[in-house]
């Protein structure tokens, strides 16, 4: 029968702020096949190790992605600290944890907004982003940047947060929490929203593992994995439960991320309460030699850093496997058989970050 459409989707497309391309085979609007294609953002920044020394690479790592830039900078520094056997001062660990959780907050709010935009709920999008702006203001007050912070350095962090600033942040978060609760309730309760999320893009726990999914994508399929439980940074001092859901659909992914928003607020509170008063960085000398693998739980899931140094200031290998990269095979599976209108939504439910995927 001739009633099949073969159409391109992207790279430039209003529902995708980032360029992704899909070849879609549709019957009516049912997706029979979806072949993702990447490479529109590929820069090849891993190769910069041969041109920039390992210190400058901190700034490159930060710019792998503008959403979790902090976490990238941090992971990179952690890898080098591991190689060079540097003991990071405890306060730096705590500060990193606080900023990291703030990143998660801002990333999840951003994601909620984009999701709302994806299913055409404009006012909810605006609402989520308005809330996110407050987090950005905190970032700007503490680091001087809204999305790229440049506060990480090998051996610790560059800027401290004074006690009153921390207190003020906690107060602001307390205030926001109520508003966030009101807003996120819409995602979980509204009939129209549910009609777009429930039972859309189901992927079972086993499939998620087979496809190598990570992060909320995996936790929404009932798999209890969270790299923070490995206890890097200050997480070994923090009390938190991994949030999972057994529904395996888009709604579950939404649920997990919303749960993590409140969890992040809670972790920040705990950190502020426990933060020790030490130095914020240690001086690092010498050249790195050796290799290290670091896994960090970014908002989108596990990021995998593999750094290999050879005793010069230019690294041998700097490998980042970002969460989105790992989630793409799972995405390809969920796209099979979905509706055309679900395509952007499903792309969004893995919380894609193409720039980090393609580096």
């Amino acid at each position: 029968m001739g009633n099949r459409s073969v159409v391109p989707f992207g790279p430039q497309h209003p529902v995708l702020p980032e360029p992704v391309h899909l070849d879609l085979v549709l019957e009516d609007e049912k997706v029979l096949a979806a072949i993702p294609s990447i490479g529109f953002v590929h820069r090849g920044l891993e190769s910069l190790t041969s041109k920039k020394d390992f210190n400058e690479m901190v700034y490159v790592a930060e710019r792998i992605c503008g959403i979790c830039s902090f976490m990238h900078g941090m992971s990179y520094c952690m890898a080098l600290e591991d190689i060079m056997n540097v003991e990071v001062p405890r306060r730096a660990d705590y500060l990193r944890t606080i900023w990291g959780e703030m990143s998660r907050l801002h990333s999840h709010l951003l994601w909620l907004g984009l999701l709302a935009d994806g299913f055409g709920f404009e006012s909810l999008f605006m609402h989520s982003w308005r809330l996110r702006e407050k987090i950005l203001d905190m970032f700007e007050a503490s680091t001087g940047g809204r999305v790229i912070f440049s506060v990480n350095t090998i051996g610790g962090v560059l800027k401290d947060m004074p006690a009153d600033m921390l207190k003020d942040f906690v107060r602001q978060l307390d205030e926001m929490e109520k508003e966030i609760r009101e807003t996120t309730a819409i995602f979980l309760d509204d009939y129209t929203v549910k009609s777009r999320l429930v039972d859309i893009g189901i992927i079972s726990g086993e499939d998620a593992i087979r496809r190598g999914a990570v992060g909320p994508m995996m936790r929404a399929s009932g798999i209890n994995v969270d790299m923070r439980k490995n206890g890097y940074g200050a997480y070994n001092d923090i009390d938190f439960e991994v949030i999972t859901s057994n529904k395996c659909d888009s709604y579950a992914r939404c649920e997990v991320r919303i749960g993590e928003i409140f969890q992040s607020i809670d972790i920040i509170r705990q950190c502020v309460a426990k933060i020790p008063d030490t130095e914020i960085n240690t001086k690092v000398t010498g050249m790195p030699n050796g290799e290290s693998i670091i896994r960090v739980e970014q908002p989108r899931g596990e990021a995998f850093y593999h750094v290999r140094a050879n005793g010069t200031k230019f690294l041998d290998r700097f490998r980042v496997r970002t969460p989105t990269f790992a989630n793409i095979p799972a995405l390809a599976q969920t796209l099979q058989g979905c509706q055309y209108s679900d395509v952007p939504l499903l792309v969004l439910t893995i919380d894609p970050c193409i720039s980090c995927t393609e580096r």
Partner: protein
Amino acid sequence: MTIQTRVLFAVLYVVLTPFVIGLLDGFDRKISARMQGRRGPSVLQPFFDLKKLFEKEFLTANKMQLFLIRSYLCFIVLSGIIFFAGFDLLLVIFSLSTAAMFLILASTATHSPFASQGTSRELVQIMACEPMELLVAVGFYLATSTFTVSDIVTKSPVANIRFLPGFFVGFVFILTIKFRKSPFDISTSHHAHQEVIKGVTSEMVGKEYAMVTIAEWYENAILLGIVGLFFVSSNILTVIGAVIAILVVWFLEILIDNTSARVKWQLMLKLAWGTTIVAAGMNLFLLEIIRG
């Protein structure tokens, strides 16, 4: 109704609609923005947009498009004239769907993936609304024994909404679709961020797009006119009530737009038809019983 008043109304419709509906559109954008916690554009923004669109260079993927769009516009205006000059309501609806066909032809003439997918959606949308539109005419016929708009107004001693609550509910429901508000997967929805881009209007550049916008305004005027028709009677004062009703419905549509996600067309079709069958069907049945 004398021929003079008919002509007068028709002329008023043709002349005033762009200003009135354009302004309403401007307020719509302002109110939506405020509902989202934003300041929003000036209420005159729709007119600036139009002006700009007319000034743009004319690019086209298929020359046929322009003439089809002009025909679309002409037909919408023609339907409006039939309506406001007080002629047959059923014919208004038929000629509106003829107009819609021109729009559809215009969008598919280009072989663009988004316009074509949008067209299919547009078609579904028309299919979802059409039964209810026809039923509205049926409802008026049942209440007043005529399809003629002028007779409906002059011959009803009380506002027809009394007999037609179900029809009204159904009609307001499909208005959400007709006004291209977000709750449904509508290709020409005013929110661009959807998978079919701007649907049927994806390939329309500059003045083509401007004409489609104007046509939409003219169409909205007819639809709001039908809303008003539920509330007017031979008593001239009921016009005030009708205007208030129109504004309330209009506000309701904005509110719905801002408080719901865009649902898929399958659900749209089910909901629209479901509401039509339940609300209008029940009302129809009861009216038939009353008439015996």
